């Protein structure tokens, strides 16, 4: 990369750093000279697993100064729009196929539950952002603060992750009337269903989705390996500063699995992010927890949004099939899907 000899940064990185106000809603990538490595400098991160399997696959890394600010109001508007788009789906099923109305209302309950937790998560997160911003305004770069709202964010995330996972597992129940007799016994775990072969578009839409794998890993970690439990004090660091030294014996409890950081915007505003680990497990087969790193900057709130949206989309697609499809048309085979 052609970095400035003194500034130690590329011109693209310099441009993004100085022109963030002009770049809202724009994604900026830097392409390495002679290679196909992309560095994401600003905006929406591309999928780590590229969508096309053809040709040499470009490697994507996240730039040190990467930044993608979003306003909480936009987020709430997105949730409102999603809620509007899925309202009444269960009633449509009940009107078209009365014998499936119980399944439809159960699926709708899950949709409403996920939206409930997502809204509360955003509310508590907004409180946390306000608390951090007021302290960041003093000029501090390391903030240790009493923050029950941080705990509440994690309560809601915990609930959202579990409900999303349960909803995906339950797809087999809702879709059972649409599977042919020979294959109506789908595996109980969504992970096992996705390993098999099926012509059902609801499952096809979930296969290979990085977010699904991450959701299942986070849920397995919370249930079987490591809790999200934290003290009601939060440690928030300004991005780019050195982390605090370990705080004695209490560090393991104070140190949340999710890390909070803030970044100053202009003179009197801050952007606050809670990051999730880049990877939960070393290898899916061994089930060994990875050493948690936070370089990919996976935000807890964007992750919660993605988990909620993909689960709700799967449930609403299942409801649409329950309305429109009279006979069993889908098949499932436990035969393992060939890796792409």
């Amino acid at each position, binding site marked *: 990369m052609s970095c400035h000899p003194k500034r130690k940064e590329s011109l693209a990185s310099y441009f993004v750093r100085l022109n963030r106000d*002009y770049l809202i809603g*724009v994604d900026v990538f830097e392409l390495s000279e002679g290679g196909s490595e992309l560095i994401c400098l600003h905006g929406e991160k591309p999928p780590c697993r590229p969508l096309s399997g053809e040709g040499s696959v470009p490697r994507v890394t996240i730039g040190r100064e990467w930044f993608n600010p979003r306003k909480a109001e936009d987020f709430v508007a997105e949730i409102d729009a999603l809620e509007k788009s899925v309202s009444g789906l269960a009633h449509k099923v009940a009107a078209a196929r009365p014998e499936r109305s119980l399944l439809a209302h159960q699926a709708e309950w899950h949709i409403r539950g996920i939206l409930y937790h997502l809204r509360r998560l955003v509310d508590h997160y907004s409180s946390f952002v306000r608390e951090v911003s007021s302290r960041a305004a003093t000029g501090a770069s390391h903030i240790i603060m009493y923050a029950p709202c941080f705990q509440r964010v994690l309560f809601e995330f915990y609930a959202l992750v579990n409900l999303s996972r349960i909803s995906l597992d339950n797809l087999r129940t809702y879709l059972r009337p649409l599977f042919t007799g020979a294959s109506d016994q789908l595996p109980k775990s969504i992970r096992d269903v996705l390993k098999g072969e099926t012509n059902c578009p609801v499952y096809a839409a979930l296969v290979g989705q990085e977010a699904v794998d991450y959701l299942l890993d986070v849920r397995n970690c919370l249930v079987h390996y490591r809790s999200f439990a934290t003290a009601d004090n939060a440690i928030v660091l300004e991005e780019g500063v050195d982390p605090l030294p370990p705080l004695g014996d209490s560090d393991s409890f104070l140190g949340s699995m999710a890390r909070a950081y803030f970044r100053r915007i202009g003179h009197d505003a801050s952007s606050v992010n809670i990051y999730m680990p880049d990877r939960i497990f070393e290898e899916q087969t061994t089930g060994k927890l990875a050493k948690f790193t936070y370089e990919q900057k996976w935000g807890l709130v964007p992750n919660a949004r993605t988990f909620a949206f993909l689960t709700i989309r799967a449930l609403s697609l299942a409801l649409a099939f329950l309305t429109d499809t009279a006979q069993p048309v889908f098949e499932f085979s436990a035969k393992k899907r060939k890796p792409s």
Partner: protein
Amino acid sequence: MTTSNKGKGRVFQERCRTVLQQLLGCHFEAEVPLAISPRGTHTFDLANAERTIVVECTAVGWTEAGSIPSAKIVQLREQSSTFATSKATRPVTSWSA
């Protein structure tokens, strides 16, 4: 033989197209004029078929003396404003490193 700046730009544009096609899994057309206001159009370097992703490719670096190429930077800032007025859901800027 030296390559002109325009030639370098074309080569870089083609590299961006290849990499973004592989990354995003969709085909990109080059030199796509799009209406950005009731009175004007802007020719984007790349755009997908649905015109939801538009791309500007920029092959520019620090000057040999280590200074900022001011004219290019001003031009890029204007391009960023153009993105804001386009209807694309995903405007992208690609830089050569």
